[in-house]
């Protein structure tokens, strides 16, 4: 059933009794052309694009829990593409292009809101670094502009731009096409879209092994619901990627860390865009429910516990209140944790692995949500062609051997 105001109206009259399942949960078949492990936005999206763009519909997505229950449903939903390096700009901007028509393409409103992302500069080094980004972005065709403190305040009227503060606002970089989307809807929309094209979504089906043949190539996955055959397996399991890779006998340059986020009680609209402050580690937006959505930093140690420490939350809220003291009287409603997988250069690994038929999409660290459609499309492309697209080709494993890292964070390194 197509979603529209008309169908919503018609269904209202019948008491909403006739809506079909958006994504039927299937029992696994014996074999598929492709099995995607991990039903987050990236994995479901890859299945969707395999079916819709690359003509492979005999696809299963297997998920150990419930779809969209990992980092897709736990992140602060920030979308932007104002990255420094060409490689990053290309993949994130590809994602942004796909975000733009995603609701219509999926016939599912993912509520991508181009409310803009403002990154505040608080010291001379920030100014230098952000301008470097803005200039690179401009020549790469990415819409990121430098704003004076006054211009920042025009966008965020409650921003204090007096210069005698501990962290004065010395300007900002603003990307209008950046913004937020409704995270759950992204997973649901892709799930519904993929299901309609014949993809089987199999939830509560933990993968416990990857079977490889005598030639070393993959033959399928062992799961709690039995063996599922597939000559091609795409792994898109974020924080658990090391665990999956180990099943195929691979050790990866990955570490998984707890990452927390929190929301306040809902209040009337006040935060007009996404605001990020790297110098104090604070970022904030306001949801369509009115909650302030605030991202925290990672804990220092590796963990799969989906649980972080209080002092991380304390520091996050302190940072927010330092930049925006008007929020000190707001109240925290809910705080949760996810597991982010981080590579040595904090850029993803997206492409083929040394094992024939095994493809991986991991290492997105704290930045995976914004890349969802782009990463999903590239994973699907790579699986379909058994070769990476030129957009994801740089995100190979070899870069850790030769040293051609894509290190956005190092490029913003602070010293003096």
């Amino acid at each position, binding site marked *: 059933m197509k979603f529209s105001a008309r169908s919503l109206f018609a269904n209202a009259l019948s008491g909403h009794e006739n809506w079909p399942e958006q994504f039927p949960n299937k029992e696994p078949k014996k074999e598929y052309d492709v099995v995607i492990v991990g039903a987050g936005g990236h994995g479901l999206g890859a299945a969707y694009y395999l079916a819709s763009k690359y003509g492979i519909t005999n696809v299963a997505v297997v998920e150990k829990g419930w779809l969209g229950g990992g980092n897709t449903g736990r992140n602060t939903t920030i979308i932007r593409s104002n990255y420094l390096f060409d490689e990053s700009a290309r993949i994130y901007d590809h994602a942004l292009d796909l975000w733009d028509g995603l609701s219509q393409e999926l016939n599912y409103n993912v509520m991508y809101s181009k409310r803009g992302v403002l990154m505040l500069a608080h010291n001379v080094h920030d100014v230098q670094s952000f301008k470097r980004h803005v200039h690179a972005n401009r020549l790469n065709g990415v819409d990121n502009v430098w704003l004076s403190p006054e211009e920042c305040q025009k966008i965020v009227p409650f921003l204090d731009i007096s210069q005698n503060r501990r962290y004065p606002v010395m300007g900002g970089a603003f990307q209008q096409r950046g913004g937020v989307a409704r995270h759950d809807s992204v997973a649901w929309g892709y799930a519904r879209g993929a299901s309609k094209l014949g993809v089987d979504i199999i939830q509560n089906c933990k993968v416990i092994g990857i079977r490889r043949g005598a030639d070393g190539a993959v033959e399928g996955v062992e799961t709690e619901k039995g063996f599922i055959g597939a000559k091609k397996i795409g792994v898109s399991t974020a924080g658990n990627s090391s665990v999956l890779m180990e099943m195929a006998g691979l050790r990866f340059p990955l570490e998984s860390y707890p990452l927390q986020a929190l929301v306040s*009680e809902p209040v009337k609209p006040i935060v007009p865009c996404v605001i990020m402050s790297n110098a104090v580690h604070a970022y904030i937006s306001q949801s369509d429910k009115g909650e302030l959505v605030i991202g925290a930093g990672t804990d220092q140690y590796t963990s799969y516990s989906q649980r972080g420490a209080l002092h991380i939350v304390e520091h996050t809220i302190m940072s927010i209140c330092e930049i925006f003291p008007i*929020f000190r009287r707001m109240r925290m409603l809910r705080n949760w944790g996810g597991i982010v997988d981080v590579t040595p250069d904090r850029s993803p690994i997206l492409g083929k692995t040394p094992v024939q038929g095994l493809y991986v999409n991991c290492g997105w660290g704290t930045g995976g949500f914004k890349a969802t459609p782009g990463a999903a499309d590239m994973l699907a492309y790579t699986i379909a062609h058994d070769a990476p697209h030129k957009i994801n080709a740089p995100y190979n494993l070899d870069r850790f051997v030769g040293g051609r890292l894509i290190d956005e964070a190092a490029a913003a390194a602070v010293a003096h």
Partner: protein
Amino acid sequence: MGDFRKTGKGVIDTQQPVSFTFDGKSYSGFKGDTLASALLANGVHLMGRSFKYHRPRGPVGAGFEEPNALVTVTRGKGRMTPNLRATAIEIYEGMMASSQNRWPGLGFDIGAFNNTFSAFFPAGFYNKTFMWPKSFWDKVYEPFIRNMAGLGPAPTEVDPDVYGAVYGHCDILIIGSGPAGLAAALAAAKKDQRVILVDENVNMGGSLIGAGHVSIDEKSASDWVAKALKDLNKADNVVLMTRTSAIGYYHDNFVALAERLTDYIPEAQIGKTREKLHRIRAGKVILAQGAIERPLVFNGNDKPGVMLTSAAQTFLNKYGVAVGKEVAVFTAHDSAYSAAFELADSNVRIAAIIDAREGVSAELISAAEGRGIDVHIGSVISKTGGKKRVRSVEVYEPVHNTQKTIACDALLMSGGWTPSLHLWSQSKGSIKWDEAKGVYLPDLANENCVCIGSCNGDFGIKAALDAGSKAGGGRKVYKTDEPVFGSGQVFDHLPNYIKPSKTKAFVDFQNDVTDKDIKLAVREGFKSIEHVKRYTTNGMATDQGKLSNLNALEIAAKALGKQAPQVGLTTFRPPYTPTTFGTFCGYRTDDLFEVTRKTAIDPWAEAQGAVFEPVGIWRRAWYFPKAGEDMHAAVARECKATRDSLGIFDASTLGKIEVVGPDAAKFMNIMYTNPWSKLGVGACRYGLMLGENGYIYDDGVVGRIAEDRFHVTTTTGGAPRVYRHMEDYLQTEFPELDVWLTSTTEQWSVIALNGPNARKLIEPFVEGIDLSPEAFPHMNVREGKICGVPTRLFRVSFSGELGFEINVPSHYGRAVWETLFAAGEQFDITPYGTETMHVLRAEKGFIIIGQDTDGTVTPQDAGMSWIVSKKKKDFVGKRSLQRSDLVAEGRKQLIGLLTDDPKTVLEEGAHIVADPDQSIPMDMLGHVTSSYWSESLGKSIAMALVKDGFNRMGDDLYIPMEGGVTHKAKVVKPVFYDPKGERLNVV
């Protein structure tokens, strides 16, 4: 007022009337009232509007679980607090409260239009529409949705109140002071243990407060509580904390408590700590958080006046308030009867008890009949009458299909009890489904933690008391005289003759989630309870599902044809109660947010009117403007004065590490790219440090003070990580080396003097050091005295001029600085800041780590191959430098740029291309890392990282800017000033 107040009931102080306003109207209550109890005493039930449909709402609960009676309290500029639960805030004289999420008013709210058309806004409706035409989304739909957001008003002013945060420790932390918690505390108090007992309410005692009908050990419950508190107060190993919510349970029995200190005080002064975060490490945690009554899900359960039976009981016992004059009770649990009887015994007419169960004990029925109360067994409520207040209920008896309307002005509901497992679950204790009770209960502990009383399913006062005593290490068996707690039945569905499409039975009272929404979610394939929650938003309101989660679970389970435990429970997340951001900040705001490190000379610079910049967590003088000067004018003047005569600069922030021990040189050889063994005592050398990845990590001048002692300097921001990096290698990889590291950054103030007159200035002040160029050449260090205090005097230069860096004990730093500055008048001594320092070094082509390099630049890229030892077998980063991509052609290399127009100063960060006419995306060669106006040279200079830069010497490159402007610049070697270095040797 007073119509609904029952004399002789409650623990309020009727001698102290308190007046307050709600939505501008004045009311009166008593000290000890909550806003809700005071309004109910005045007959006011309508206190709020729901989130989505703006339905008129009254309180459902009587405490912190309340989802609906949310208000905004204002007490002056910046002290506006939205979303407060009327049931949990104490009134004070002059309190100003207002309702929220309504316009123009609470009684008539335009937003209630949503309710009329609620059929079109079922769960997930937004996913299905607002997509066409596409352009409408950004411009029309999305802004509209956003404007509908939120409950209370957003803050507009800075909160002037202050907050606190402290650490604490105890052997036993008891959370909840009902019968279980009190009994646990009494038992624990007798041991030699530190006990903390916390309760989120004003009074301790929980359900025992005002429970006049119950006796414990032959005392009335009130007397027993009073005695217990008296004993606990006397015990100096026990700390009692009220108005304190346990909000989060973290690793290793670390529990966060939020204490509210001033909100209830009429003239709460600004400056007094409003709320305090207690971060408690407990040996053992005893959770006695009780249980929350479960609402029933039936058509019309959302009228103001419909509330939990236990809430009505609390309003009566704690505040002496009857929630109505004619009260109907709808129940599926025995416990509602005793509540109804208490009301009846306080002269509240019980219009009827409607019990959904078929089998109810004869005793209860006869006890009801004895009080003249009609009991309708096997009956449900099929609808309710009234708009802004419930006026009647329709009792439906499905077996005989009869309906009967009964008038009432309040309706109490009881669907049984939900043990509070929030903190238990946060502690990662496991839970199990108890089929008999129809609830989740604690199972296996993950920490040293137990649940006792009704949160453990031990319902009833005696059960709670005995469990408490045991948990507290006692063996006391209590004797109580209490009504039997009884049992109940869980209904996943209540029958109704009215077509479902015509009914609205709410599950989440704040987020307007109905049973139909949950069924719709299941129908649409949302089968995990987390999916149901997210699709419907059930349990995501400000009560975080305390009232709604179990009902939603039952409804979803039925729709799925599964048992509740197969569907699972959503995760409990902190905080237990919404907690003020300020509380998490504690004292750490403004100057205490982060340490702002200042040098000993900083106050002098401030007095001189310096402009500062933050560098890492230091603040440094950036430039010293004279009247009317902007930064460029000041920097031009500072540069010229330094090159012409003498500049003085505070370099104290540079990191310093003393590397000492017989193997000091060996260790330095490992940590730096260049060799150290042959550096003579008294000599200095510039050192370059790499990460193991081969990229430049830090740099600085190192002086050899003795054979076994190096005075190492680092960058300002890099000092902590360099120290850590060194300790890491020393302890983990080279523990056999006999060498030790000590941070001495703050031992020394460092005064840099640069300019041809530098030596002349210090000569008269120095003792014990021969300053002559022959005895003390460039790149040497000597120990002696200056201005009478010990010094390590370095002859080094980061400007290209004759330079000294005078290290003196930091507590004397300012004094030495002032002495030298005063004496420097004869040389027109000029203080300069970091900006001038940057210009002077750029003129010489010296790099700034983090500006001219980032974490991707090798020494070769920076044109510093000369500093990488070819002879040393090992140093950190050596092997990585040999990796294929690090030795490949076409890497970005640090070069100088001179603009075609010497007046054009390039923008730092601007990107460089070979062909400015190409289309976007352009092929970028690199970027400008440093760029300044050089007053000394009369032209602009720049440094840049450019692909294959060393092979482009003399080439013209282009810098395309905004608005079609393109600058042209020539690639040169990055040494612009005095390339032969002659100025170092000025005599």
